[in-house]
């Protein structure tokens, strides 16, 4: 009986999903297999996959997502561990510092990065002052700059799940591990990391999905010479007006990122990894 009540309460959400996500997705799927004369064909997919440049853009997009996931992990894991080892004051500060960027618009954050990465920005000036560069340099419109900006923007998506897991974690497990003779690194790798694995995978899925589809940041920080799938879709829709092709590209992006995310999810649910959680 409780199950029935639950279904009723979930009905509005399911209805919303059906109306505003699945139905448009279905329309997009139909569009993607429409040929120039309205006939059903896979020509759009074939055209895209036969074009080395287009496939290169797809590959670059996935690679960008992987790079951002890597940098977010390298930065996010120590932040989460610092949170775990801190007192209430520092914990509050870390939490605010993590959440604060999420309260500002993605567009505003992206434009702030223009100042940071620019020729007259703090990074360039610091490099010159430290004697590491003889003249001001700009990281704008470079992949390094883009990965830096996306790392900061996506960081909360990994740090928050990690903090959520660590808040529930029993510190005595680490103590027990050390009492039994394990060093700090071994305790981290064999006790803490397995506990964090589901949260890490969940964060990776979110970061990867967000980084690969972040049109604004990719366009503003990456410029016109770094072409990724979202801009490729926008170009087909807004400039070339090739909607069936845009729909096919969107689906290919969805399928590609979907495969990566599915892989990560399956890994997170793997018997051996999940057993630790």
């Amino acid at each position, binding site marked *: *009986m409780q199950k*029935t*009540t639950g279904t*009723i*309460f979930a*009905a*509005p959400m399911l*209805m919303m999903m059906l109306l505003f996500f699945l139905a448009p997705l279905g329309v997009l799927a139909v569009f993607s297999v429409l040929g120039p004369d309205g006939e059903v064909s896979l020509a759009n997919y074939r055209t895209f996959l036969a074009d080395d*440049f287009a496939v290169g*853009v797809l590959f670059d997009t996935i690679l960008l997502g992987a790079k951002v996931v890597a940098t977010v992990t390298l930065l996010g894991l120590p932040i989460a561990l610092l949170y775990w080892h801190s007192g209430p004051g520092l914990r509050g500060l870390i939490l605010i510092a993590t959440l604060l960027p999420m309260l500002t618009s993605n567009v505003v954050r992206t*434009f702030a990065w*223009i*100042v940071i990465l*620019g*020729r*007259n*920005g703090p990074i360039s000036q610091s490099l010159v002052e430290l004697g590491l560069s003889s003249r001001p340099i*700009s990281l*704008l*419109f470079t*992949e390094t700059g883009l990965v830096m900006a996306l790392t900061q923007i996506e960081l909360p998506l990994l740090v928050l799940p990690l903090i959520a897991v660590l808040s529930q974690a029993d510190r005595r497990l680490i103590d027990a591990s050390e009492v039994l003779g394990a060093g700090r690194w071994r305790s981290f790798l064999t006790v803490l990391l397995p506990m964090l694995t589901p949260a890490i995978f969940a964060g990776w899925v979110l970061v990867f999905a967000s980084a690969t589809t972040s049109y604004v940041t990719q*366009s*503003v920080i990456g*410029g*016109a*010479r*770094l*072409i990724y799938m979202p*801009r490729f879709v926008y*170009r087909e*829709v*807004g*400039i*070339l*007006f*090739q*909607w069936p092709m845009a729909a096919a590209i969107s689906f290919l992006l969805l399928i590609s990122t979907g495969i990566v995310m599915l892989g990560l999810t399956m890994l997170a649910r793997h018997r051996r990894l999940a057993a630790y959680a």
Partner: protein
Amino acid sequence: MKRTNSRSGFLAIAASSLVVLSMAGSVQAENSGSVVAAVFPGSWEDAYRTVVAPIVTEAGFDITISPVLAQDQVGKMMASGGKPPYDALLVSPGQTAMLKAAGLIEEIDPSKLKNWDLLIDSAKTPYGPSVTVEVNGIAYNPETVPKPTGYADLFANPAFEGRVAWIGFGSNTATMAWTEIAKINGGGADNMQPVFDLLAKNLNKIGAIATSGNAQMTMYQQGEIDVFMASTGNVARLRSLGLPADFAHPKTGSPAVPVTIHMAKGASDPDAVYAYMDAAISTTVQAQLAEAPTGYIPTNSQVPFTDIILQFVTPEQLDNAVFPDWETIGIHRAEWTAEFDRVVAK
């Protein structure tokens, strides 16, 4: 328990129905006696919100200013399936040709515009009044680079190495510049290959390739670039922000482009659109927009060129302006856009 379920179900359905009905009601209210006007983002949006909108409201109509790039207006109109997202569009001839071909705009009745007769002849088009003529050229920072003599100078003179920003064929301003550069190098509106060859040869000397005109303005403000293809209005805007900026007329002629308001086919309230058009071409509005920071060249014959306009362009220079062949450009624009991406991609 069964009764509880029925009650919950009833309440859920009733609440959903109320939400749907209230949404439908609000949409209906918005569409009555109102105009949704698409305007370019940035200085155009600011100007139309503060100067034009109050006059439309005074005339008894509600107005919503919606910031959208010209090419995006066409895209959204094409995607609307006969239910236009905008009642009035603001575009250049390149987009007008597309909208006309797709049957998305309609001819207007000039007798419904009381300021129509005040317009200069070239601003009276069957599909709506032109509200300004944008003169395009080269914006540059006089404190950091010399005055460019023309487009060719930007590629040949080492002083501009790493300081010039360009954009692709999605932008009208860029498309006009590329067309002129093609002419200089033996091509034209039907042959853009010399431009792609030139770009491929000089990619390492280019300061930046941005995704939009607004991105270029931001980069100029941040000192990332010192030169970009711009309209006189862009330079006036930069000056109003206290930045050193000058406008250079290319020696091959400055490309000019009228900006026109169109009525969308299926506009919810044509009278509201006429009130909006009439406000935009009125002497009061055009006189105000001819001043800083916008400095828009007036199409209302009673409004003189202001000092800010005369700093950039004289009536004689306007007479000698180059008006691109938008029909030919429209035919090739898609292929040029795709090719541009291939040439510049890292």
